[in-house]
């Protein structure tokens, strides 16, 4: 089952193991420069607020009610990363507009071994974007559906689904017990969902490029209990639509690049030398980033081209035991 607790999706599989609990949160962050250079990971600026679709069903499209799940507001100046947390290993599939963010293939519920179409908790603490090449991702950034920028529209030609889709599978209980017996050392991780539906929605498009590895499954495909899963559809609204639906504004203003620079926020690099990174998805690597697409269309860059670039002294290197990536205190 999945519950919503303090803007975090909590997955639990009591029918598999009483410790089979994990959580996923969607973390606000700035857009990194979309200039084909590689950047470290920006910090989190707090979690996006999440609401049950059912609580506002009379003000949302019928399709959203059909999907179920949750929704959240997103400013176009923002980007998000997904934070996974939990000690019990889980295989988590993340799709944007029903395009798999790891492989670029169309969404399916089932786990796939080759190519691996999921991330593994707790080995993968975060996912910041679409996996385009080995050790490189393109940031998840919000764009209105229907303008051709989202990964879904570039790959399918249609703005049909939007949002984020999350599916989690727990590890088999027997395998987990063996892990624990071998002095399983829990790591911290965080998970997030996201999704964007049709008429009034936002979608996720590929933005700037970041150094982040999507790790291969170190447990092996047989470790996962593939007949048990939980799913969540996460819809995205822009701030104006969010105010119309809920009656209140998002509980924050989008940060500007100059705010960010003045606050001296850190950037991060994360490495786990024991894990192998996936190669990245050629289908996703062929997508045009928002910045490239706007240049090709003869349009000015978003936000007047105002981006933040990190200074070397701002970059912090984290190892697999250090997964705190918070910059919200500075706001």
């Amino acid at each position, binding site marked *: 089952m999945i519950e919503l607790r303090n803007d975090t999706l909590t997955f639990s599989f009591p029918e598999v193991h009483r410790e089979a609990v994990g959580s996923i949160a969607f973390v606000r962050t700035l857009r990194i420069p979309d200039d084909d250079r590689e950047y470290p990971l920006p910090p989190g600026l707090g979690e996006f607020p999440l609401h*049950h679709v059912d609580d506002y069903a009379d003000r949302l499209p019928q399709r959203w009610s059909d999907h179920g799940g949750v929704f959240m507001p997103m400013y176009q100046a923002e980007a998000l990363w997904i934070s996974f947390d939990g000690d019990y290993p889980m295989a988590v599939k993340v799709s944007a507009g029903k395009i798999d963010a790891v492989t670029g293939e169309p969404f399916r519920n089932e786990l796939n071994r080759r190519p691996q179409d999921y991330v593994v908790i707790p080995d993968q603490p975060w996912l910041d974007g679409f996996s385009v090449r080995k050790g490189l991702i393109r940031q998840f950034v919000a764009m209105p559906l229907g303008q051709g920028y989202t990964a879904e529209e570039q790959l399918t030609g249609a703005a049909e689904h939007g949002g984020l889709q999350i599916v989690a599978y727990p590890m088999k209980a027997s395998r987990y017990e063996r892990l624990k017996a071998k002095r399983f050392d829990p790591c911290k991780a965080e998970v997030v969902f996201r999704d964007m539906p049709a008429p009034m929605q936002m979608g996720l498009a590929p933005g700037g490029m970041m150094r982040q590895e999507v790790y291969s499954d170190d447990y092996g495909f047989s470790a996962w209990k593939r007949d048990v899963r939980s*799913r969540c559809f996460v819809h995205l609204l822009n701030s104006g639509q969010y105010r119309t639906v809920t009656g209140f504004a998002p509980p924050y203003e989008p940060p500007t690049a100059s705010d960010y620079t003045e606050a001296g926020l850190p950037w991060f690099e994360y490495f786990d030398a024991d894990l192998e990174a996936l190669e990245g998805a050629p289908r996703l690597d062929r997508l045009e980033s928002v910045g490239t697409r706007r240049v090709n269309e003869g349009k000015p860059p978003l936000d007047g081209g105002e981006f933040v670039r990190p200074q070397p002294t701002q970059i912090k290197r984290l190892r697999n035991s250090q997964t705190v990536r918070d910059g919200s205190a500075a706001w």
Partner: protein
Amino acid sequence: MTFGGYIREVRERRRRDDRTFSLRQVAGRVGIEPAYLSKIERGQTPPPSERTIRRLATELDEDADVLLAMAGKVSQDLQEIVMLRPKLFADLLRQLREAPDHAVLRVAREIRDGDW
């Protein structure tokens, strides 16, 4: 323990490590007169308003709902929740009255999965 006695105990405990938790300074940060806080702590006046209790909770790093309960109050937002659907929540709370904590925690709302 009374509400006032508990506030005094927590404040004094914190003052042992941090002298800014004197009666005068805490009262100042909470926005009340030191004499009034002194009377609250000694039980010489009824517990203060919900707003003041919430400020005390923040200042002393205590749970506001627990302090409100010690003061014989229920927070305004909880009252509003019950008043919106009084029969539903009254029935639910009475059913849970004797339930152990773990059973209460099981009354969780699942995110509905639909067709997609």
